[in-house]
């Protein structure tokens, strides 16, 4: 019994280090090295590199190159160097890296492989992947794995006893497999033969294919991730792999002895005990200097600029915190200086499931960790299904296929030619508008007693609405400044031929467009009884104020408006004026974004550029419909005037917060509890996918093959690839996220101390934290568990006009500059 426990403990810890990516439909950004987050950032990175062989920084040559180019300043380098007293400047520039760094995990198996004289993995992996992928397949295979409702191994056993062929080549492994009493312990006794080496063996075995191992661990723990229900446990998967190994060894060697009897050297797996190497310490210094070169510019300009109060507010827009909203807000504000914008997580405080019309499934449209108790149901008359016969099972048939190739084959030729020569909207492309029918009615108001059989409440009561609306306004600091029209601008994205499309939509809505959330929130805020109730909470929404829901398509730069018929007649003119500004801003935004796309000429007519940018979202051959969160580096939590006048080049998440109404940090605590995992998760996934695109990212997406709708792999025999493809991260600069909070240091400290998980993010510096004290115009950086004063060294240029003209001269990052005073 004791042994069994020990084995399960090993597997349990092992699972923690596996990639935690869900199947593609629920792609959500997270810290790739989450398992090391209990250690300080640099220590964690060093341990991860030595144990698993990941690259966790850029190369020393790359840092030196950045220094030469000025992307790392001498000043920041000196400061970073002064933070320690072990290494010298000379080493920074002249230390030679070793060409080969032994990796700990995998070393046991490598010795074994040499003794065996053949590549066991090469024999076992293809069949193992095939079996497990077929079992978990969510709809690619026409002929499904005959599970008969059984769990993984039981289904396989049943098949094994009834099938004409066996998955095993030899009798021994097959007999062990058919015997349900044969456990993983038994298999390891055969393979390894020594309890003490089990841990090494299992780590080496599983981290040879982290993609599938991770996916199975995820599915085992959260079976609801799958639409086609499949029951599998991680241990069963490992057992099958061991049996296939036994089988392959039997076939290859006839008689063989357990690995531990071959005198292989074992290793200790203990991330806390890893000692940093000189090269790693040097890279840590370089990385800090690299980050601070940029941070310092930002802080310097924040300190220098003069804050202006918004003189008069004509209209208000509430946007998502997303870094992609950074520029569209700027464009609207520059076109209409009396426009006031806010930022908050794009689910707009609405925690619910959504069920589309005619759909039998629910999708979560709030942050992933939340377990909603509500449901919004869509009722519509529109037909949503569009069939694409190329994906139809018949196209793969033999005799029907014979007829189809003779006939439809030529239709394919035509479609092929059209889609390449004249790309246009098509059934394959993902559109942000598919999520919800604009004319549909949503079950927003709860009718007494309406619940789903499994207990979800359909719609919200007035009290709940009041709490949601009030909570959101309080958190962003909007209490009595309401303009006649207030826009709720959710976002989503459109793309074609994109397996990772879920990662392009709103992260706060669990990777879906936020259109439903915007409509639901607007409805709530327009609700007379909600307004009445809010007045008791010091939130006074004037009767003539109206909320308008909008969906911004971040790839197409389009605004899609909802519920326009509800705009009161006296506000129609105001709306039309705003709409014209939004349209203009969208075009400017498209031109600004186009500067990063080398294949678009940004200097052409703005209208042409706009069309080209939009064309990318329907072109099958465009792997970069938009660049998503690439270059993200900042998160600013504060009033709009705190950062409105500086140019941040779409690199900042912007969350509105008014320190004046939150002296105890209650709202701030809530904001940072979301910012750390959501923005930090996005930022670190980009960071790690960038520094090691081969092991922590998904590599180039061009050869990707869709595996069972679960994930992607290269070719047909490969392991699942986790992380982001190279096309998403190639222009990303690997900076950690710096969260800048406009609030006194002691309040910030109190706010983060309330939640140990949040505190860990900042204390271990996986996300940086800076407090800005508005009274003293000074900064304090959170370091080693406390705030320390920081004085920026740099100065900032002031940019008077023609920003866009200057921007499109370069594909590269543009320095932080102070914008011309738009308010005056």
């Amino acid at each position, binding site marked *: 019994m004791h042994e069994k426990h020990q084995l399960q403990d090993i597997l349990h810890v092992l699972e923690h280090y596996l990639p935690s990516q869900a199947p593609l*439909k629920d792609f959500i950004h997270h810290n790739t090295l989450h398992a090391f987050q209990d250690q300080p950032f640099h220590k964690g990175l060093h341990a991860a590199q030595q144990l698993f062989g990941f*690259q966790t920084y850029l190369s020393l040559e790359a840092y030196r190159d950045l220094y030469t180019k000025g992307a790392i300043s001498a000043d920041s380098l000196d400061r970073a160097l002064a933070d320690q007293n072990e290494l010298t400047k000379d080493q920074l520039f002249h230390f030679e890296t070793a060409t*080969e760094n032994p990796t700990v995990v995998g070393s046991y198996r490598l010795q074994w492989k040499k003794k065996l004289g053949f590549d066991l*993995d090469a024999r076992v992996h293809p*069949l193992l992947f095939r*079996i497990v992928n077929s079992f978990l397949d969510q709809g*690619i*295979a*026409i002929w499904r*794995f*005959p599970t*008969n409702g059984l769990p993984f191994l039981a289904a396989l056993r049943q*098949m*094994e006893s009834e*099938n004409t*062929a066996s998955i095993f080549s030899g009798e021994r492994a097959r007999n062990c497999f058919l015997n349900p009493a044969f456990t993983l312990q038994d298999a390891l006794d055969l393979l390894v033969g020594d309890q003490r080496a089990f841990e090494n063996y299992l780590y080496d075995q599983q981290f040879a*294919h*982290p*993609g599938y191992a991770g996916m199975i661990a995820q599915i085992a723990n959260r079976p609801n991730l799958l*639409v086609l*229900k499949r029951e599998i446990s991680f241990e069963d998967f490992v057992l099958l792999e061991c049996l296939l190994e036994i089988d392959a060894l039997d076939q290859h060697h006839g008689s063989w002895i357990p690995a531990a009897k071959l005198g292989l050297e074992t290793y200790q797996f203990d991330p806390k005990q890893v000692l940093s190497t000189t090269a790693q310490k040097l890279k840590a210094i370089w990385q800090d200097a690299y980050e601070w070169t940029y941070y310092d510019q930002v802080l310097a300009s924040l300190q220098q600029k003069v804050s202006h109060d918004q003189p008069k507010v004509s209209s208000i827009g509430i946007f998502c915190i997303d870094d992609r909203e950074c520029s569209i807000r700027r464009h609207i504000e520059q076109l209409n200086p009396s426009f006031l914008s806010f930022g908050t997580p794009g689910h707009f405080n609405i925690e619910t499931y959504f069920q*589309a019309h*005619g759909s*039998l*499934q629910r999708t979560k449209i709030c942050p992933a960790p939340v377990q909603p108790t509500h449901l919004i149901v869509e009722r519509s008359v529109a037909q949503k299904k569009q069939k*694409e016969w*190329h*994906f139809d099972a018949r196209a*793969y*048939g033999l005799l029907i*296929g*014979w007829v*189809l*190739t003779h006939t439809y*084959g*030529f239709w*394919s*030729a035509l479609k*092929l030619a059209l889609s390449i020569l004249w790309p246009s909207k098509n059934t*394959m492309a993902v559109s942000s508008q598919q999520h919800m029918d604009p004319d549909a009615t949503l079950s927003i108001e709860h009718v007494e007693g309406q619940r789903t059989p499994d207990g979800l409440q359909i719609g919200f009561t007035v009290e709940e609405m009041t709490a949601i609306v009030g909570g959101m306004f309080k958190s962003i600091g909007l209490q009595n400044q309401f303009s006649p029209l207030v826009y709720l601008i959710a976002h989503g994205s459109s793309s074609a*031929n994109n*397996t990772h499309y879920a990662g392009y939509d709103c992260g706060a809505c669990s990777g879906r467009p936020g259109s439903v959330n915007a409509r639901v929130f607007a409805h709530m805020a327009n609700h007379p009884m909600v307004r009445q109730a809010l007045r008791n909470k010091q939130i006074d929404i004037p009767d003539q104020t109206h909320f308008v829901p909008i969906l911004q398509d971040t790839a197409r730069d389009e605004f899609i408006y909802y519920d326009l018929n509800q705009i009161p007649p006296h506000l129609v003119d105001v709306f039309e004026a705003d709409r014209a500004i939004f349209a203009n801003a969208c075009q400017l935004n498209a031109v600004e974004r186009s500067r990063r796309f080398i*294949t678009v000429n940004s200097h052409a007519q703005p209208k042409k550029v706009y069309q080209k940018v939009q064309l990318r979202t329907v*072109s099958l*051959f465009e792997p970069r419909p938009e660049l998503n969160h690439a270059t993200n580096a900042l998160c600013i939590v504060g009033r709009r005037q705190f950062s409105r006048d500086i140019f941040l080049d779409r690199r900042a998440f912007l969350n509105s917060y008014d320190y004046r109404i939150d002296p105890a940090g209650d709202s701030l605590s809530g904001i940072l509890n979301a910012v750390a995992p959501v923005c930090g998760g996005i930022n670190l996934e980009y960071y790690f996918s960038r520094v*090691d695109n081969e*092991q922590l990212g998904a*590599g*180039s*997406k*061009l*050869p*990707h093959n*869709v595996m069972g*709708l679960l994930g992607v792999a*290269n*070719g*047909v025999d*490969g*392991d699942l690839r986790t992380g982001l493809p190279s096309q998403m991260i190639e222009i990303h600069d690997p900076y950690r996220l710096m969260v800048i909070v406009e609030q006194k240091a002691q309040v910030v400290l109190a706010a983060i101390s309330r939640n140990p998980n949040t505190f860990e993010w900042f204390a271990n510096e996986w996300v940086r934290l800076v407090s800005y004290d508005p009274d003293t115009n000074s900064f304090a950086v959170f370091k080693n568990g406390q705030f320390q004063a920081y004085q920026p060294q740099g100065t900032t240029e002031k940019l008077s006009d023609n920003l866009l003209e200057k921007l499109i001269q370069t594909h590269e990052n543009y320095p932080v500059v102070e914008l011309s005073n738009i308010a005056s």
Partner: protein
Amino acid sequence: MNTTYFVHGFLGLPILGFLISLFLSSKKEGALSVLSYSTAFLQLLLVLVFSGSWLLHGAVPVQFKEISVYRSENYDFFIDFLVDKLTLTFAFLGASLTFLITIYSRYYLHRESGYKRFFNTILFFNIGYSIIIFSGNMETLFIGWEILGVSSFLLIAFYRERLLPVKNALKVFSVYRIGDIGVILAMWLLHHFWHENVTFLEMNRTVTLHEHLAQNSGVGLLIATLFYLSAAAKSAQLPFSSWLPRAMEGPTPSSAIFYGSMSVHIGAFLLLRTLHFWENQLYFKFGLVFAGLLTAVIATVISRVQSTVKSQIAYASVAQIGLIFIEIAFGWENIALLHILGNAFLRTYQLLISPSIVSYKIREQLYEVPAQENKSSWFKSFMDRYYVLSLKEWNLDNGLYSVLWNPLKKIGRGWKVLNFRYVFWLMALILGIGLLLRFNEAILAPVVRERLPFFFAFWGFLMAVKAFTERDSVRKSLTLIMFNHVSISLALSFNAHFDNAHHVWYLSGIVLAWAIGYFLLTRMRKTEWISLDNFYGHIYEYPKTGFVFLLVCLGLSGFPITPSFIGEDLIFSHIELDQFGLAFFTAFSLVINGLATMRIYARVFLGPHVKNYHQIAKRSS
């Protein structure tokens, strides 16, 4: 339009494009892609205009002899072209798809580090494809055939820094080499069948054909079977089908056009091209229908259990090609051509849009909850008994491996003890004795002399196997490959007395390639550890050496860049019709040689780099 100009234009365009593309900077994405798609566009224009005028002028097949590359008394190695309906259909297919896909790749591959390499290879592939479809005789076809094989290898191993693409490229290349045996032996038999090198048109001329077939029905059947072997290998028919899904390692557009359409239908092309040769051989036609049917059924069954989108498309395509083979067997040329076009376009498009299946299916599942299980019926429960077998691809992949390569490995590993020096001296000794005997043949008893060709051919074969299975010294393997050729040359010199110039033709390129290769390896050994026990990925640090070494490998395996290519064919013409064993071992060692050289290139230069100071992909990815 003048046919000669048309053919020169159609073939000249990709050759010109390829040569220019080699000299363009890898940073010039625009120039590289414009060059590629304008080449294909001009080809498309040419074929459309020509086809129009050709149809108006009665659609008569046109054949013309381009040039005699080598000529002696009873031997003429000449390049010959043929233009007919089959040629023009494939030309249209190739040009239109290449045009569309190069435009597609222009954007799709933007910023990819192998951008230039990709377009170089596509142009190179285009050359091979064009030569095949315009070829008027087997010799010309074989040139294109070889180019196609090598460019396929390079496209599959496009992501050369990962293990699986490289291994799969080798796997596919080895199947292609089996197809090459078919072509080489068919060429040899045809030569004897007609007592000269014939063109396809002559081959199909009914009167003479019937005469010959009546005399040699066994040889006729053998030739037809060899055609099938080559066609089946290239078109992924049984028992070779499992290579097709494994070829899907390159960027999706290249998989789409090459393994969805152009490359995979070349087998059907070969059968159509030789249709008249075998159309009256009833046994062969039965066999062809049977093989086609078997492939169609088994590939369909395998396709249905595939849980990855690309392998599903690959097997569905194989199944349709099985049907195409049946259509060809029945002589339904037009239906087969239509089917080829339809299948090619359909699979290309399906592969191109394959990433979209994620969003499409997930969206579809919102509205139609997929059944949790297969529908139950007696048929399904019957079929479920074949699920595991289908999942294991009917053991095609493992089967091919264990039938073909395991025996070779056993032979090769048998004499592990010999280190480089011993092997070298042993070889030198045997070859020395051989040469000595060659010039003093008078002393040999006729019985011995008759057996010597076979002895040396077999000895050469052993050298090739040893080179192929060597796990340690790279230079030893390379030298053994060279020795293999020398051995074959010696064997044939005992067989028939012919002009020594033939040997010079044959060995010149090989020895030169070996010398350069040996030099490069020796130079590299000074700084790097190289061996054949693993993939080393040295191309990361030695891209130029790697490129030159690739040329060396091509030279060593008799690729049409050196005179050795013609020499090979020449040498074969000296094997008599009744010496099938000699012919077989000679052909087989050429095939193994080709594999051994590409294996050296792959192991030394490709795969995950041994130095992990930079990003390196997992072996399983």
